[in-house]
Structures are given as C-alpha cells and as structure tokens.
C-alpha cells in the first residue's frame, strides 16, 4: 500500500537532513494588504491588527454610542436573563466583546483558535484588536496577550461563546499551561437573541444582521471555509488569504455591539415598531419574569397589530389568562367569546367559560352548556389518541359535577 511504500522509502533515506523540513526565515507576502504589526512578549512573536472606530460610527441600526444610552446593571441582567449580586461600575470600561476564528467546528483539543478578535472601549473610540497566530509556534505569545485582556474586564460579550469560543480558549490556555480565570458575567447574545427571535428560520448572527439589525455584508466568506483558508495561509504565507477572514471577524464584533444595543433598546421599551411576533415573545419573557403588567401590555400590542392569525390567537389565549390573573374577567370573557365566534383554539374557550361560570358566577346552567359544547366539539374532531381519552374524561367529570350541583339547587 501507499503508506508502506512511503515508509520503506523513508527507511532508505538518510534521516539526518532535518533542517530541510524546518522552514527558516519565513517570507510573508502582501504584508501591506491590511494594517498590522508584529508584537512580541516573553512567549515569542505574533501578529496583531488594531482598528479604532469613533463612537459616531454607525453599524446597521445604531451608532456605537447608542449602547451607553440608559445602560446599567439592571438592564444587563434582563438581557442576560440572570441575576448578579453586584452593581457594575463603569460598564463602558468593563466590556470585552470577543469572537474567534478556528481551524474546525467540532471542538476537541486539536482545534485551534488562530484569530481572536476583541473589542473594547478606549476613551472615545471602540478599539477592535485581532490577535493572530501566523503558525503554531506563535500561539503561546498570542494567548498570553489575550489572557491579559480577558483578565482586565468584568463583562464578556459573545455570540455562542458559552459553548464554543470560551471553552476553546480555555482548552488552548491549558495546553499552554496557562489558567483561565472566570468572568463575573459572560453575556452570550445568542441566548438573548433566541429568547426573542426564535421564530426566525435561523438565529445565526448573519440572519439577525439581515432580518433584524439592518446590516448587509458584501462578499463575506462563509464561516465553513475559514479553516481551509487558514491551512492554505500557513503553507503560502500570503496575507492576501487572511484579509477576508479579518474583515469577517471585524463585522462579527461590530454586529455584536449593534445586537447588544438593540436588545437593550427593546427591553427598555424604547422601540415602537416591533412586530407582533416580537411583542408576543416579549410578553412571554415578561410573564416568566413575573412582570404581569409588562406582559399584558406587550400582548395587547401584539394582538392589535397582528396580521397573522396564528400569532394573534396564541397571544389572545395568553392574554385571557393574564386578565384572569388580575381579575379582569370581563376582558377575558370578551376574548373567549371572540375565540368561540371565530371558531379558534378548539375547546379551550368553552372550558375557560365553563370554569368561570361554575366557580366565579355559580351559574351552573351556563357552565353546563359550555361543557356540553366542548364535549360535542371534541367528539366531532376526535383523534384516536391518549390525549382524547384524557380530555373527554375530564370533561365528563365536569359535566357530572355540574349536573349534581344543578340538581341540588
């Protein structure tokens, strides 16, 4: 076989000319295609790019400085859907945006983050630095610098960094015998975005850019090509190959800033042209946070502007529960009657009405009528499932109870 022939050849060759393999002095090509400089520390040399964006710079929906509008620990907690037990001071100075480019997407110790892009605020600019290893022997120097930056900031902002970028950086640090220290807060905007835009076909940064953030990339390289480009680069040493990766990563970090700003504005209720779907999702989030007032407000708005029926009725259903909770039964009743009139959501409005008339108003006859209608509807649309059996037996139970109550009277 090939290998055996190969190895037989190796046996014949003199193995002492090892120097041949080691490429001496590397000659890089097209080094001026982007601004960069070699950085050295006690671990060696690596390549760094640095770019400053004035805070007036607009990326997609917002100028960068919009991020600082009304930013505080509370709103960050809402976006992160978590509780922190301290107050962040100088948020602006404590943010670190991070995004890596890697040699593979599968993870494992053999995958390398060859480019680590970070963004932070510096006086009146957003500085985006990209730390790049031009070959495997530059990793230690690059990581040392990145670790310093990581250690300086309290709040890390990433997109899918919790399950991808940070574990990978942690693995690389360990392999270079460096320890990773945890951040006070890691804000993974993928999770924050999913809580609102789960109805989109994809919640990738790219699709959020086009569908939400109003930003369109030209000639962007697909992420799946990046490992191949890097392997090509370390062979050919041509900066031209890296240029599109560098641009791709820059946009990723800028979009992180815009996405963060947009999420903040949404949660601050500063945006008045949200879609009914977005409003519905916000209503659900407020419900989970037990902010029922906020929940009702968003759901009402969602219903009001809704074009698509399925969202409208989903929102109405939730809304009727909220009205029940705050004892606004007349509002709830309106919804149930509307649903019955429009023949939506099956037996749900009948059951709710039955409950209301039985328990609240003690009008058993009306409750009975609604129960019987529900039974009839269920039987007409019966499916041969376990659920049908469960539902019908509950309804029959209710019917019997009502009949007893009526008889007593």
């Amino acid at each position: 076989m090939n290998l055996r022939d190969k190895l037989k050849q190796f046996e014949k060759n003199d193995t002492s000319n090892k120097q041949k393999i080691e490429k001496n002095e590397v000659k890089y090509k097209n080094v001026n295609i982007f601004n960069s400089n070699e950085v050295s520390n006690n671990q060696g040399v690596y390549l760094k790019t640095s770019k400053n964006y004035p805070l007036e710079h607009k990326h997609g929906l917002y100028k960068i400085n919009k991020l600082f509008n009304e930013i505080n620990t509370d709103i960050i907690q809402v976006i992160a859907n978590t509780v922190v037990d301290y107050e962040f001071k100088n948020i602006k100075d404590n943010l670190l945006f991070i995004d890596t480019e890697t040699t593979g997407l599968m993870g494992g110790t053999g995958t390398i983050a060859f480019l680590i892009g970070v963004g932070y605020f510096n006086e009146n600019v957003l500085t985006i630095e990209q730390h790049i290893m031009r070959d495997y022997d530059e990793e230690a120097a690059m990581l040392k610098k990145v670790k310093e930056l990581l250690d300086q900031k309290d709040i890390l902002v990433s997109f899918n960094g919790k399950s991808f970028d940070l574990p990978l950086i942690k693995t690389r640090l360990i392999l270079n015998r460096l320890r990773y220290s945890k951040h006070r807060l890691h804000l993974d905007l993928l999770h924050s975005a999913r809580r609102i835009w789960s109805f989109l076909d994809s919640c990738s940064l790219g699709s959020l850019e086009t569908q939400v953030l109003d930003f369109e990339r030209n000639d962007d390289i697909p992420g799946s090509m990046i490992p191949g480009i890097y392997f090509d680069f370390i062979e050919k040493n041509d900066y031209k190959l890296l240029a599109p990766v560098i641009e791709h990563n820059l946009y990723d970090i800028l979009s992180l800033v815009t996405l963060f700003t947009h999420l903040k504005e949404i949660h601050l209720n500063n945006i008045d042209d949200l879609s009914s779907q977005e409003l519905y999702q916000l209503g659900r989030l407020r419900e989970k946070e037990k902010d029922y007032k906020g929940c009702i407000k968003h759901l009402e708005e969602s219903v009001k502007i809704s074009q698509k029926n399925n969202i409208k009725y989903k929102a109405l259903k939730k809304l009727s529960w909220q009205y029940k909770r705050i004892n606004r039964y007349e509002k709830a009743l309106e919804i149930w009657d509307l649903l019955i009139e429009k023949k939506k959501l099956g037996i749900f409005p009948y059951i709710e009405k039955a409950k209301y008339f039985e328990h609240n108003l003690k009008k058993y006859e009306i409750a009975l009528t609604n129960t019987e209608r529900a039974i009839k509807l269920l039987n007409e649309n019966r499916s041969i499932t376990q659920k049908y059996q469960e539902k019908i037996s509950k309804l029959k139970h209710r019917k019997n109870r009502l009949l007893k109550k009526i008889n007593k009277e």
Partner: protein
Amino acid sequence: MNIEQMKSYLKNKPDFMSRIMAWEELEGREGKYAELPSDLNSKIKNVLKENGIEKLYSHQKIAYEKIKDDKNTVIVTPTASGKTLCYNLPVLDSILEDDNNRALYLFPTKALSQDQLSGLYDLITSLKEDIKTYTYDGDTQVSARKSIRQSGHIVITNPDMLHVGILPHHTKWIKLFENLKYVVIDEVHSYRGVFGSHVANVIRRLKRICNFYGSDPIFICASATIENPGELSSKLIGDEIELIDDNGAPRGPRDFIFYNPPVVNKELGIRRSYVLESKKIASMFLKNKIKTIIFTRSRLRTEIILSYLRDDKPNEVNIRGYRGGYLPNERRYIEKGLRDGDIHGVVSTNALELGVDIGQLDASILAGYPGTIASSWQQAGRAGRGQKRSISIMVASSSALDQYIVNNPDYFFNQPAESALINPNNLMILLSHIKCAAFELPFQDGEQFGVETTEEILRYLEENNVLRYKSGKWYWSAERYPAEDISLRSASSDDFVVIDKTKTGSSKVIGRVDYFSVPTTIHNDAIYIHEGKQYQVKELDYDGKKAYVKEVDVNFYTDANLAVDLRVLDQFNKKELSKRSSEYGEVVVSAQATMYKKVKFNTHENVGYGDINLPEVEMHTTAWWMSLNQKFENELNKKTLEYALLGLSNLLVNIAPIYLMCDPGDINSTVQIKSPYTSRPTIFIYDSYPGGIGLSEKLYRIDYKVLKSAYNYLIKCPCESGCPACVGPVNEVGLNGKEKTLFLLKEVLKGESKG
C-alpha cells in the same frame, strides 16, 4: 432434581451414555485464605466483616500488596473468584487516604460497566463515604457529564468511549488526569486481535495525556485463564507487569461431558443436529428445575434454540434469550431476573461469557465447541459458584473442529488455554492512533509512540497535510476530528437499527446490526429473529441505516449466500516449494450477498429463494495463499481441479483453527482457478477482520503442518465422498471431490516431508 440426582439419572440412560465421548469428573478445591491486610483502612475492614468477609483469598491479598507497592499487576481469575475485590480494595483505600485520588475503570462492554457500578455502589454505600462513582459512556446523560468530569472519583467506561469521548477532550478532565492513581482494565483477555491492538494504542495515548498532567498511574489488569496473560497485559499497557496466577478461591466439583450426536447419514457423515440435541438436553434439565445456561455460537442459533425451548416447556419455567443487539435495559432486566431466580434458563451467545453477574446457575450447555479452549472454560464456568457442584455438557456439531475436540479429549483437558495475540504496531492501527494522539497533544521532536520509527510516520502524515512541523513540534493541522473516523471494533459505528413497525403508528427500535452483517441478516424479506419472535424485513433504508420490520409467524428462516471476490494488494513473504508456492500478504475482500434461501425449521430443507440487491461490502485484511504448479493443470481437467481446490480450501478452514488457536469464524477461504495475481490455481485463506489479526502470518509459518494434518484427517473421515466435516458435501465439491482433494494433498506433501 439436584445435580447429583441428575448425574445418576444420566448415567443410567443408555442412549445418552452411548453418545458420550468423555466424562471428566473435575475435583473441587479448598480455598486458600489470608488475613485482611493490616494497613487496609479500618472502615473498609469493618464493611468487609459486616458482609461476612473475615479473610481474603490468598491471591486477593497478594494483589493488594503488589498494587500498594506501586507495581503494575495482572490477576488471572477464573469466574467467581472474587477478582473485583482485588482492585476495589486498593482503589477505595487510596481514595479514603486522599480524597484527590482518582481511578479509571475500563470494561469491554457497557453491560459490564453497569454491573461493576452497582457492585461498587453497594460497597460505597456501606462505607458511608462520599466516593463518587459513575459510568461514563454513550448512554450517559449530557446533563450529568459535566459533574462526572469534575468530581468523579472512580470513572467507569469502555475503551471506545475513552478513545472518542474522553482523550480528545482531556482538558475538560483535568481533575481526573492530574490525580489519576489507578487504571483498572478488566477482562484483558478479550482485548485480542484487532480490538486489542487498538486498545493498546488507546492506552499509549492515555499514558501520554497523564504524562502531560504529571500523573503516572498504576495499571491493574484482570484476565480469564489464557496461556499468556502476563505477555498480553504487558503489551497492552506498554510496561512491565507482575503476574498473579495462583488462585486461592475454592472451586466446586464439576462434571465436564463431551456429547456427540449420533450419525444419521453414514454416506455423508452427517450427524443429528447439535442444535436439536442441545435443546433436548436443555429441555430435560429445565423440566427438572435445574437452572441452565445454553451457549450458542451465533445470534441466529440463540434465537432458534430459544424458540424451540419455549415451545416445549412447562408454564412455570421462564426462559430468556441474551445476545448483542438486545437493548441495554432489556439486558439489565434479564441479568437481574437471573440473579433473583425469576428466570430459570437463558440462551446466550458469548455475550454472557464475560463477567456479567448473573448469580448461581447449576448447569451449562455448550451448543457447539465455542472455538477456543479458553472460551470453553469461561462458558462452562458460568455454572457453579463457590463450592457448589455443577455440570457442563459440550454438544459437538459435525464440523471438523468440534469432531476433533470431542474425539481428542486429552487435547482439550491437557492443553494450556490459547494465547491472545495482539500487534499494537500494526501499521494501519498505529497510524490511526498517531493521528488521534497528535490531535490530543502535539508530538515533540524525538518523542516515541510505541515504535522507534515514530518520526517517519509523523513525516508521512506531514506530507499528507494532516500534521504540520514547526519549531520542533508536530501539530494536528486538519479540520477533522480523527477519533470519530476510527472504530476500535470492526465497523461498530456503522450499526444499522432494526425498527418494529408491527403496530401502525408506533415504531420501536428492537435491535442493532453491524455493517458487515447487514447484507446477510436484514436484506429485504429477511427473517430477523429477536427474543424468539420472527420479524420480516419490510424495508431496508440503506442510506438511513434503518431496517423496518413486521412481526410474522412463518415456519422458516432465511440464510443468505455471499459471493466473495479477493484481490491481492501486497505480498509480504513468499516461499517456492516443489509443487506449490506459498505466500502471505495484504488483500482486499469484497463480499456481495446475491440471494437467500428460505430454510424450514426442524427439517432444514429449502423452501424458497429470493434475490438480494445490496451494495457490496469491502474489507482490507491479510491472507495466506498457496498456488499449484503446472503439473496439476496438466493432470486434472479444469472442473476437477476446481472441485479439488474447493475441497481443500474447505478442509483447511475446518482444520486450521486447531493450529491457529482461533475461532472457526476468524478465517475464511476462497479459491481462484486462475488467480489474476499468481496466474495459477490458488487457494486463499484470510482473516475475517479488517486489518487482519495475525492468523494468516501464522498459517504461512506452519502451513506444512496444517496440510499434513488435513491429509491425516481426510483419510480417516468416515464419509464416502465428502461431508461438511471434511471437504464439504458432494453437491458442493462433486462426486470425486474427496478423492481429488486427497490426490492433491498427497502430491503437494510429497517431497516436502522435511519442510
């Protein structure tokens, strides 16, 4: 009836006794004991005493001392001799001494891991100590994995998971690797051939990772009785190891009986079906309330015997099947039933040969010689625990190997058990694991991975753009995750699932089938037998790796024919002899299922045929081949020569396993009347495993001896003109097949007598 009563009942049964080829009464043995080690943690001592263990068996004590003396140790233990204490004592003791200590347990199967977990769990619960013990394998919930990685004191897993799920992610296991004190490898005898060679390389990778984190674990191995436990373990762990083979456990008396079914067709030398005979004996035992395990040689036979037994049993007797392909919880349930005594009999493949705890059984029936002496003793040992009397009956099939064994009981009872062969430096295997190792940690200049030629392999990988050499280190430089492409067992990651669609609207996975068995077992319309029920394959989704089946009730099973094509890739060695040349080397075998037969139960007659349209499966392996010189082509016509070649190849496959000490299924043959490679009439015998497991090489070395024995066997075979036990039946090799094979052998052997 108890065993004694059954024994005298059998002895007074003339038709039974007339078929007995050997009846060995093996004596029991008193146990040898030793005091509990004085330095053993007093909490452990107390728990042992609470469980009635006042003393250890002598081998347990020696093991404890060696291990505590930081010696790699292998303990040879027959079934039921308390091997788990040999490693659990030092491991638990060291964790009680220092809470940071960690241990890794490796078992060849998930079933054994589960079994070990429950045993350890009981012990730890009685200790009332917080020693965290977990299994970590494909069945482990994702949500539980993180805490296992961080806090498990004892992690129980299998080599496959270590290979694909743990080592490539070692940075997530810092706590384990920094503090790894012991690595326990149980059932080391099962790590032989290709699997063992892979595992030895996984261990090399493990040691490399430990070295990175500054730990240097002690290896504790446990093995069943084989000829070379020390050598095997030493090769497996790549280090010296102390052997403890003086077993101190008591042994109950055992009757070992060789039973040969009567000849029913003298012309063809055909005996009554050993499957039916085994079933008859098992049925007699079960009816008399004797708990019995029946071992079969294949999954299909397990199911056949199970369904026969179920048709012929009293209602209160509960019999189950057990084999690979059953789902984990189903197997757990059966194991528990056997321990608790709710299940009275079990029909199993060799899946139960390993140390799954199934409690006390009285009798074992081996339906057919299991292929090796070591396996035979393991299977027999599943009956009888402690000092209890037990009985084992081996029912011979009409195959040459079985007949050889039952006709030569001295060979069986006096021969040391087989040696387990591994070759960790098999180039293909080594190459695979060097890739995985480089992915895990870059290689340093001068670093060796098992072989001195490591650097040459690294350079080869660099040329293929898989590694990159930079500043004295070799880095993984590809997008792929190499461990995922490499299976430690042949094609296990390519399993097909079998889905029961008997009920509309519901579908249930009932089993798994490995890639190489797909064309013969789950082709369209195949009868797939599971838990004694018959299913017919309604649709095979080859790309989706799924077979949809429906339950049926028919009186036949299906048996597929394989068309085999063999190509030589490389010749490693060659000898020219007077009448033939003999070579061995690397080949690629492609097998295509072409058609299947419907075979009626009981009578085994053909009741129909069907076509199979599936892609061929390919395997690279090693082969021995022998080509005949011109003389034979001059003297025999083409058809006769082909029959003679076929006869000889059948005969060699029958005889060679005795000398290769392997399972009959481990080798296969094919013949080519004019081989494209040798241009001569050629017989090929090849290893049935991808990559080969060294059988062909051994055959190349001893081929004269094998041919000679084949000749002696053939002249003694009682059949008239060919039978399955020698050259094959007449309808396969023709009326003159036996005669011409004999002629061929005689000619070949002439002039080689001093070879």
